């Protein structure tokens, strides 16, 4: 009896193993043949390629809802906005056929086009625009619209937006706010976004892929590609997808730039995506607000102007570029290099150790005890520098900067941590900082003392009355030309300014080139200089993309 039961167990175990193994084998065989079918299909398919597979990074939040942060450069694919930016950075009409601003800069008038429709076929009306702007103004987290007084719909499908005070940067927000349908917008909008851009979202598998199809109601140029599939893969897996021929475009970090993939070429696009070091400009012991929390602020070393200016001229930007980005980038001197509001006088001949030491010496920083570190009033030129530890670029940059600073007689202690930690302690130490937009509003939020204590604005607690004045004049200018004039003066007016040769609250060091591996046959059209936020900057001109066989 006993023996029989053991045997039964043995048999059963055996059959379970066999079953398991054969299942695995079967799975392997079955799918193997299916793969080859697919290959055959694509080879004999029609000559015009109509779908693209893109692995351009993880989609981080936003999820097609402007209230959740779907904006900046992302919206072009799915949403339309009042205005758009062309590849020469001119503001052109999108939903609005044109726009006029009153003399005093307070009334903005937008006649809307009549042929715009949402992906469900319903027309885009002035009411939808009004609804979107009012909803975002009310929410106020992702878009700052506090300066907007009223939004009115007038006759002839026209929107009139009245401001409390002139705001020259409003024009750029008009390109960043995607219009949502009043009748279909709710908290679940992300799950079924209805919008009026060239593509509509047909499926969003969080953490896997986004499938978009051409929106037949799109009023603009019909794109060649009728279907886009975005793979939400990590960098390693994305490169693997390119190598196995599953993706047509893959975003690559500079460390992967030397990778060769058959049939694909590296595309390099200059960007305004800048990196630098933010310094507390006030002595220690103060306190201020960051993202609604009261935090300590100030640093006795970095608050000394000589230290910041010495770094601006003493750090070797080309060497940093080579170390940090394998040369895939540009030098940066301000947050807006080469843009229409950039003041070219702020460009310095960098890597100049002699001048840097002179600046330090003039500021009272001398190495009297011969330990290689300069001192002033018995205090060593030593300070902490935070960087986000999960950002390879910022880690490398911080370490390289600390290394170079040693030659200038400064000791920088680099500390990698989380952004949460940086937001809490960052106002007492240097921080590896980043930014860069197609519009100058960040110049204001990073440098005006009036912007301090809101969000993470003006982390340096920088205050200069003259700069404030220029920034205010720039912000409230009623024409772009006038605004640009003041933006430039705020950087450097010959005596003072927030740029590196001025007060240098942030020393900008480099701009990151945006790199993609793309199929040889894919033409990405004329790309404008890219802005901060690697992933989506590419799609501004999606309708110009072509595939040649």
């Amino acid at each position, binding site marked *: 009896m006993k023996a029989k039961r053991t045997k039964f167990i043995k048999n059963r175990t055996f059959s379970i193993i066999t079953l398991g193994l054969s299942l695995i084998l079967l799975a392997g065989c079955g799918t193997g043949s299916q793969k080859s079918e697919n290959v055959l299909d694509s080879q004999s398919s029609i000559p015009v390629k109509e779908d693209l597979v893109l692995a351009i990074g993880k989609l981080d939040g936003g999820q097609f809802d402007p209230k959740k*942060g779907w904006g900046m450069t992302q919206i072009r694919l799915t949403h339309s906005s009042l205005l758009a930016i062309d590849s020469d950075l001119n503001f052109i009409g999108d939903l609005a056929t044109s726009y006029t601003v009153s003399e005093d800069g307070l009334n903005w008038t937008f006649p809307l086009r009549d042929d715009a429709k949402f992906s469900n076929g319903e027309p885009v009306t002035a009411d939808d625009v009004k609804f979107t702007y009012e909803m975002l103004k009310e929410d106020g987290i992702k878009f700052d619209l506090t300066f907007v007084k009223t939004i009115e719909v007038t006759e002839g499908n026209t929107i009139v937006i009245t401001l409390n005070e002139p705001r020259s940067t409003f024009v750029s927000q008009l390109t960043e706010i995607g219009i949502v349908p009043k009748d279909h917008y709710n908290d679940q909008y992300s799950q079924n976004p209805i919008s009026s851009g060239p593509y509509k979202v047909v499926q969003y*598998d969080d*953490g*896997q892929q986004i499938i978009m199809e051409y929106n037949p109601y799109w009023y603009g140029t019909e794109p060649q590609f009728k279907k886009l599939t975005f793979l939400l893969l990590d960098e390693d897996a994305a490169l693997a997808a390119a190598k196995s021929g599953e993706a047509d475009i893959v975003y690559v970090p500079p460390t992967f730039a030397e990778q060769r993939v058959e049939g694909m070429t590296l595309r390099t696009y200059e960007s305004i995506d800048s990196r630098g070091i933010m310094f507390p400009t006030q002595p220690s012991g103060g306190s201020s607000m960051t*993202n609604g929390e009261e935090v300590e602020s100030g640093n006795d070393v970095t608050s000394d102007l000589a230290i910041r200016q010495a770094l601006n001229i003493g750090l070797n930007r080309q060497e940093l570029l080579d170390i940090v980005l394998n040369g895939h980038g540009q030098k940066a001197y301000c947050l807006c290099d080469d843009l229409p509001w950039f003041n070219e006088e702020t460009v310095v001949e960098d890597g100049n150790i002699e001048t840097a030491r002179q600046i330090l010496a003039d500021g009272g920083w001398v190495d009297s005890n011969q330990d290689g570190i300069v001192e002033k009033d018995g205090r060593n030129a030593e300070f902490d520098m935070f960087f986000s530890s999960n950002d390879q670029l910022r880690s490398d940059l911080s370490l390289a900067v600390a290394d170079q600073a040693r030659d200038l007689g400064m000791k920088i202690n680099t500390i990698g941590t989380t952004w949460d930690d940086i937001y809490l302690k960052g106002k007492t130490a240097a921080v590896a900082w980043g930014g860069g937009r197609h519009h100058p509003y960040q110049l204001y939020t990073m440098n005006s003392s009036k912007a301090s204590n809101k969000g993470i604005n003006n982390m340096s607690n920088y205050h200069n009355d003259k700069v404030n004045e220029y920034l205010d004049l720039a912000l409230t200018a009623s024409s772009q030309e006038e605004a640009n004039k003041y933006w430039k003066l705020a950087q450097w007016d010959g005596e003072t300014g927030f740029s590196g040769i001025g007060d240098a609250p942030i020393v900008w060091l480099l701009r990151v080139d945006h790199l993609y591996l793309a199929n040889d046959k894919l033409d990405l059209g004329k790309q404008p200089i890219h802005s901060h936020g690697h992933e989506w900057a590419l799609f501004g001109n999606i309708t110009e993309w072509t595939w040649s066989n």
Partner: protein
Amino acid sequence: MTKRIIIRLIRALTLLFGLSILTFTLIHLSPMDPINAYIGGDSSASPEQIEKFKEYWGVDKSPVEQYISWAGALLHGDFGTSKLFRSPVMDIIQSRFLTSVALMGTAWIVSGVIGYILGVTAAMKRGKLTDTIIKWYSYTLVSTPIFWMGLILLIIFAVWLQWFPVGLAVPIGVLESEVRFIDRVHHFVLPALTLSILGVANVAMHTREKMIDILNTEYIIFAMARGESKWQIFINHGFRNSIIPAMSLQFAYFGELFGGSMLAEQVFAYPGLGSTLTHAGLKGDLPLMVGIILISSLFVFAGNLIADLLNKVVDPRMRRVV
């Protein structure tokens, strides 16, 4: 038996209660700020707006108040609403649970069976070449990080051989309604294999040790003296004595399996509970995180319970232990 089940249930409830308190406490103590995580570094919300937002998310209240309101809702079966996905936590967990269970379950069975067979083989062939190979194989695997293993498999089977896709649970660009079962299996193989391979080593090495102990006992020597063949010795004496530690180990491996699946899911962009938990953790989505932790610990608890019951079926001596 009823008494035992009731005791177990009480244990399960206290475990969940303790875990939820621990999770709340840890999140509260962590430097992570869910508001920062949501707002990101890119906006300029004013302090008043942040206050409004905190109120909306309910994080303006003290941790104790937050816990009480959360636990109160849970008693009515409501796990709360995920802040990131803006949908009920239970819905999210339901949609992810099956994928994860399939992944972990397969890996668990495959690694257990193969590990056990390898362990027994090594012990029976102790000192011979087979033993050496299995030992080295296991040592190498034990010291291998799971994401690295995943990447290696990815390079070999997806990039070079192109037998399997590089990631995701469904084919690229295919709508949910058009995905066939075989496609899912095709995408399932690599992550499952990654998870399985690493589980093998533990079981194999422990089984080997246990089996060697068994082979050194007097009753085995006696059996050999009786002239039983190696196979008979294994069937009659070895199997029962070695399967229990192997099984206990395999069930204890549940937690590790969950951790491993998190990494494997990340590498292959496979949408299971693990990758959702990571996402929730990084973004400070408390309700979603606690929800997944509770469900997964319940899962681990159930596993241990089954292990105990199975032990009792296989080994009558264990039946006396509560």
